[in-house]
């Protein structure tokens, strides 16, 4: 077992990578100026909707595709134009891509044999890998006779066997049903912990990204919009897209009057004002958009930060959603945890005051 602490050493350094198909005006830009540093031993996720460029980026790290410009470094050395078989990087494919004419053990041994490892070492390593993914009993089985979850484990064992510097995972859980997906999520975390290998994981599932990752890069339309820990991405989204793609959010607009110490006061249409977090690059004045997560707002006695009328009360079991119309006319949702069985005292049609938790309002790029 290896040291699994994330170090500041950079495993994969992606510098100003651009990928364009075609030339000139009509060129399609699949990836635009992507710059990311993935750290050693990190579980790093590329998150975004389909067509955002996350798979393109992964393919370029694997060597299946080459950037139009920019460079990719692995442990400090330039691998931008190396063919896939010269990169100490292995991939778990979305469709697993297991060799149908080989047994489970032969699949797992493939990379080691291609590297010319001695037979005894290959055998020992294959046994170790099959133990790691709990498939020892199926070593002699053909892969097309296995369930999706088992195939997934074979694909993982095969990719981990040659001890790559980085493991790339291209939406590996998308073909599995819900229960199996949950199971494989914790399995992946365990494997990453036990092997100490840097994982770069591609997904469009925000929940998967939040629960599994050390850090996330949120992508859209070929651009990396924000890189941060799951908490940073969720609580401090820098961008309107990031805020809406991950979790539920209330968007409000208002006039901003100066930023000081990362805080700013915003006056809403209704005349009420809210204190928000604002990055130093936020505009010093004018209309801005800010977000409040529904669970960071609560209905309170007294004046609160906002006022509105309850339009609808929706019960969700663990919590209740209150859909409000603010006095400025904006829609706003409050999520109340159902802490007691007596139920919410708030009813539709009622005028309420809403308080926003300290530091929960956040200015985003529109």
């Amino acid at each position, binding site marked *: 077992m290896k040291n699994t602490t994330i170090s500041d050493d950079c495993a994969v350094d992606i510098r100003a990578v651009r990928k364009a198909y075609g030339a000139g005006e009509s060129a399609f830009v699949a990836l635009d100026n992507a710059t990311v540093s993935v750290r050693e031993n990190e579980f790093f996720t590329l998150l975004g909707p389909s067509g955002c460029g996350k798979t393109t980026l992964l393919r370029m790290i694997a060597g299946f595709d080459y950037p139009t410009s920019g460079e990719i470094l692995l442990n400090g050395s330039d691998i931008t134009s190396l063919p896939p078989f010269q990169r100490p990087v292995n991939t778990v494919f979305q469709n697993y891509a297991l*060799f149908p*004419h080989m047994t489970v053990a032969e699949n797992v041994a493939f990379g080691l044999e291609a590297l010319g490892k001695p037979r005894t070492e290959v055998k020992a390593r294959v046994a170790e890998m099959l133990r790691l993914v709990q498939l020892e009993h199926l070593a002699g089985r053909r892969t097309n006779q296995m369930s999706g979850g088992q195939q997934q484990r074979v694909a993982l064992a095969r990719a981990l066997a040659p001890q790559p510097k980085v493991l790339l995972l291209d939406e590996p859980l998308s073909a599995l049903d819900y229960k199996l997906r949950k199971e494989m999520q914790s399995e992946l975390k365990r494997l990453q912990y036990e092997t100490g290998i840097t994982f770069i994981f591609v997904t469009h599932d925000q929940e998967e990204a939040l629960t599994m990752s050390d850090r996330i890069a949120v992508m859209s339309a070929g651009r990396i919009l924000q890189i941060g820990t799951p908490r940073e991405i969720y609580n401090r989204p820098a961008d309107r897209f990031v805020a809406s793609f991950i979790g539920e959010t209330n968007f409000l607009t208002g006039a901003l009057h100066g930023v000081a110490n990362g805080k700013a006061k915003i006056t809403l249409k209704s005349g009420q004002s809210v204190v928000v977090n604002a990055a130093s690059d936020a505009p010093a004045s004018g209309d801005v958009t800010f977000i409040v997560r529904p669970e960071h707002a609560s209905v309170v006695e007294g004046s609160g930060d906002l006022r509105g009328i309850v339009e609808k009360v929706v019960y969700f079991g663990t919590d209740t959603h209150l859909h409000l119309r603010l006095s400025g006319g904006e829609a706003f949702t409050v999520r109340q945890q159902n802490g007691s069985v007596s139920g919410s005292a708030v009813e539709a049609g009622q005028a309420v005051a809403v308080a926003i938790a300290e530091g929960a309002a956040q200015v985003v790029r529109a």
Partner: protein
Amino acid sequence: MRKGFSVRHQPGFTAIAIACFALLYLPVVTLVVYAFNSAPSVAAWGGFSLHWFEVALTNSDVIDASVRSFQIATVAATLATVFATMAALATTRTRRYRGQTFIYAFINQPLMVPEIVTAVALLIIVAQLKAVTGYSGLGYLIAAHTAFCIPFAYLPIRARLENMDLSLERAAADLYAKPLYTFRRVTLPLLWPGILGAFMLAFVLSLDDVVITEFVKSGGQDTLPTYMLGQIRRGITPEMNAISTAFLLLSVVIVTLFFVVSRKCT
């Protein structure tokens, strides 16, 4: 209740189908039956006998022609399959290049050239080559058979390559396999049924060929079909039926094998 359109419910379907099958198989059945005739006639039945098979098997011309046919078919089918495999790889496993469609059409063009045209063209060029080189061996026949077998061998291999999941070869490259190693360990084993099918098809086509062989062969280079053609010109005996029956049996075995192998591997 109205049913969807089905040819089986059209008037005359059964009659037409029976007529077609009769047209196809009655002559063959007649041929096979008279191979076992004890009388020296292909029209008047004289009782069951294996006499004509015995005659054929002791006829040294038949044996020579059969051996030659197998030699040519084996070598030509092997060469054609190798070339067709290379051509199929070059048209499916490379980055798209200029003129790829043209090359695809070019490889398949021989399928559309009438065989007699190819035969006449080969007759002329082979005659010149024989005069220049002085060589008049089986090489010409083998080369000619290889050439016309390539497009037939190319099609099943190409079809197999196109249906193969490209991510398998990508996965091999990802696992440190250099291109040649990927080909040997992944592409070739998965392509094998296609290659085998191509070989069998080429083998049967070569074995069966009359027109090109007749034009290209030198004296004393009869293959089984051209020998039979020559004999029939002099009058038919049930010996021809016996040879044909054996030939038919062989073709059926090869084609059946081909289907079994290709079914098993998919």
